[in-house]
């Protein structure tokens, strides 16, 4: 985990950038993010707390809150699902 200070914000993160943040969330716990997007979140140990932290990291990077009410939550099972949702949320906010 890195300090969130200072907040050098960008308008939108692309999938690779979100993936980098996801890697950091897992690395802080000594876990690796497999390549590709099909890995099952349960198998790699990416849980609700981790997803929440990732969302906050995205918010810190883009300098605004994500609106999770906008798209309605869907079944998030894979790495690709996480990247899809966070990319979509940035567009909707």
């Amino acid at each position, binding site marked *: *985990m*890195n*300090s*969130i*200070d200072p907040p050098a914000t960008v308008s939108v993160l692309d999938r690779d950038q979100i993936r980098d943040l996801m890697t950091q969330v897992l690395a*802080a*716990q000594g876990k690796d993010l497999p390549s590709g997007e099909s890995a099952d979140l349960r198998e790699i140990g990416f849980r*609700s*707390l981790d*997803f*929440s*932290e990732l*969302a*906050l*990291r995205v918010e*810190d990077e883009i300098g605004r*809150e*994500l609106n*999770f009410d906008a798209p309605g*939550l869907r079944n998030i099972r894979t790495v690709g699902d996480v990247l899809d949702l966070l990319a979509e949320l940035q567009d909707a906010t």
Partner: protein
Amino acid sequence: MTAGDANRVVLPDGTATTWRALLDGEPLPDPVAVLAEDAASALRAVRRHVEDGTELLVAARSRVDETLRAELIEAGFAVPSYGVPAHRAAEPGRLWILTSGSTGRPKRIGHTLDSLTTVREAQPPRTWLCPYSPGTYAWWQLVTLSLAQPGQDLVVTDPATLDDWPRAAAKHGVTAVSGTPTFWRQSLHRHGDELTTVPLSQITLGGEPVDQPVLDLLRATFPDARISWIYASSEAGAAVVVHDGRAGFPASWLDRDSVDRPRLSVVDGELLVASPHRGAGVPELLHTGDRAEVTGDRVLLPGRISGDEINVGGTKVSAGAVREVLLTHPSVRWARVTGRRAPLVGQLVSAEVVTDGTVDTALLQRFAAEHLAESAVPRRIRVLPEIPVKETLKSDV
């Protein structure tokens, strides 16, 4: 005439005077709210109160916003700095304190010189640094001590001179300093070795939860000083005074009946105080709203009950408990823990810290993970360059 009339009072500009000399000028309107622009005018108002029994509220002008000022005027106080006369009969001898407002808008609590004078046994001669904002309970504690006892001198600071207090303290022979834990953390962080040039024999902490790491840091810096912490509030008065260098107070003090001492109890995790020093109109048994935990032979007071709880996916996390863990890291000088709105789990634990620069946030997070449940580990940690201090010397931790 007061027993401390000959005591020295050093003003922020370095001018040395005495309580007796501060009794200059005309009597004040009565009742009066003195919204002080400087420390000297606040002290003069107090000395006039001693002489005349003027009903008095003292507060730094910067602490009184327009709404609060209107409330004071509506309550009948003269406000000389705004040309407002009194418009009701005064209550002789009454003093009013504004609460710090850390739990909402400041409230007025009624006291008297007698109820604010909580140190009555003779003290060794000391020169006290008074870093508190005029009119706060802690400020009154030092002021009444100096008024009541010969040999208790005061060196007063103001916001402009506060940061440089070690130099003023060394210059004016300060031997005792009272401050909030935030004040002490900031001082230790900012001044380091310079502090050891001030030969302190008495260090006092109060106004905020006092944790073991700050006591240990002070002990290491001032090995020969007596280190005391005080649990006090405008409402409860001074209720607990501990000198043994440990956080919390002995559990044997609970439910103990004594003529002159407050009765302390813990009910449903909350500290209850029945104090002879309480403010006027305050219930005899005051629910303090402060969390109390009996741990072995000590009662620890980690923080407020309301506002302390962070709900992480249905798991209740105590912000105070997380803060205490962060503060046990040797590189952490200060910490604030809050809940941050987060998807899926409602809130995540977030922290702001000030460190000595030898630890990064990843290491700090791993440290927290070794000592806390997973849901309590701060997921976001922000490093601040300075300890944020409000005018009350508190920091909303």
